[in-house]
């Protein structure tokens, strides 16, 4: 690995899966730029979990809309569906997925509500295929081999309790207040430590994330604790 390896958070990897319009810069960064990019299996699983969750929310909602179609009137079907979604789901992530479904598959959702079972199955297959491609793309881009665009490191501990990094983990977690992000930051720290041991020198790692809530807003404090790890947003990386 060269001096400035990049450790990517899930929000960067997911964003770089499609070369579409404003995501193209992320896509190019992952697929074309020569920087060495790594991540951990924890980040990879987080990304997979997002797609699995989104697929399930959409499939369930399509099913629900079809089964309850008798309740909807053509003139206000979309508002009624949103009301239904609020009743069906408590998690904001589900509602976000449903709003995307209504935005990007509006006519198809109308057909599900006022059409036959083939329309429902057609849209479910469509959602299933789209998520399949995302998961396949993710598996190819982010694999446990140096040949991959993002080399996935699979051997991070499940948690850092009882490891020599536990004191660092405690401090990081006190700052972020969010265990999931703390563990990901610690994966970067663990990886850097392994690189140091291998190369017998101090390596530096750029942690790339767009997470403002727990990570970027606490950047200065976190960088003090995570020696030789610099935390940067994608925009900062892009502007050099």
């Amino acid at each position, binding site marked *: 690995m060269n001096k400035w390896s990049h450790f990517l958070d899930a929000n960067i990897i997911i964003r770089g899966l*499609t070369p579409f319009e404003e995501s193209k810069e992320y896509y190019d960064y992952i697929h074309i730029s020569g920087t060495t990019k790594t991540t951990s299996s924890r980040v990879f699983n987080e990304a997979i979990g997002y797609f699995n969750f*989104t697929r399930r929310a959409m499939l369930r909602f399509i099913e629900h809309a079809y089964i309850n179609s008798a309740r909807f009137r053509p003139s206000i079907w979309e508002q009624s569906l949103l009301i239904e979604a609020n009743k069906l789901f408590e998690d904001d992530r589900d509602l976000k997925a449903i709003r995307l479904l209504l935005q990007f598959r509006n006519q198809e959702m109308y057909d599900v509500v006022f059409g036959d079972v083939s329309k429902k199955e057609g849209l479910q297959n469509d959602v299933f295929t789209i998520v399949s491609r995302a*998961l396949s793309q993710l598996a190819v881009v982010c694999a446990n081999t140096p040949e991959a665009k993002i080399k996935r490191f*699979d051997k991070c501990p499940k948690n850092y309790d009882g490891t020599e990094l536990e004191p660092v983990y405690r401090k990081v977690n006190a700052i972020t207040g969010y265990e999931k992000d703390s563990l990901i930051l610690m994966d970067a720290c663990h990886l850097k430590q392994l690189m140091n041991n291998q190369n017998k020198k101090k390596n530096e790692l750029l942690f790339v994330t767009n997470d403002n809530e727990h990570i970027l807003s606490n950047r200065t404090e976190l960088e003090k604790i995570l020696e030789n790890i610099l935390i940067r947003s994608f925009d900062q990386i892009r502007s050099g």
Partner: protein
Amino acid sequence: MSRAAASQDNLLRDLIILISEADIKNRKDKAKLCETQIHKLLWDLKQRIDNNAIKNALNFYWYRQGPYSPSISAILEKAKEEKIFSITKINEHDFYTLQGKPTYDKTNPELSQAKKVITQILEDTDMYDLPKLVRKIYYHFAPFKFQPTYKFEFLDLLNEYVELVFDRTSNTEYKQNILQKLITALSKAEANLPNKKSFSKFNDLFSQFVGDIQVITDLYKDNEQEFIFTIKNEANHIWDVFAQGVRIEAHDAFYDNLVPQWQENFNEFLNGLEISLNAFSELVSRKSKEYVNKPIESLDSKSLEFLNAICKGYVQ
């Protein structure tokens, strides 16, 4: 055993005798009933009869093979010892046929009422087709639509597909058709997962499994043999775990006192499933290093735009 419990057991024993007697009357020397059949017929009796004493003697919960009652299994065990039935073994399963003329109180008005309903049930049921009876019960009465979809659409097709994968003479087009149906059944099962908090961990694990199957069928098509038995084992494992959870949600009040124990069992089974499915996911993700240079089949621009919006929607 209390007098009330003994009396309920006697009633249950008499109902089983009545069913067996009615079966002999209808099918003569072909009459024989397996335990699952007796369970399902008695369950049907409970749904149809308008008699509280009979209903109260029949207590069920939903489990691996649909409505199940440990009391019925216990009575059958006892009846074996008392040689009330002759037993025929077919494919490791016991089939029961009434022997002689066991006594029951023919003046009991409850049993007379039950006898009439049982006669009707047997008239309505194809006694030579147990799977049809089980399917009917699942599709009409299962507490969650996930159950018939997963059991009769996904698991059945999966068994067929596993055979096709290793059958070199199988028609490629037919195999592809079954795979497409299998994927449709899987997505339908996921769409019908229980919308209950108590199943949220199960639902997450199920979706993890679906995601792994998607990668295998989409990306590792040429290597499906490597995964197919694990998929089959995990798919059956999932059904077993679901059975631990479904009885908590769907049982007669008679079993209320068992719910805390069932909840513990369900949690243990969920932990076991988590370990096992995580190992499967690792297996799937480790394989991807062989595919890093494989181009992914592209989506049309409308779908790509939708996927892009999904990707942009991720906020940690």
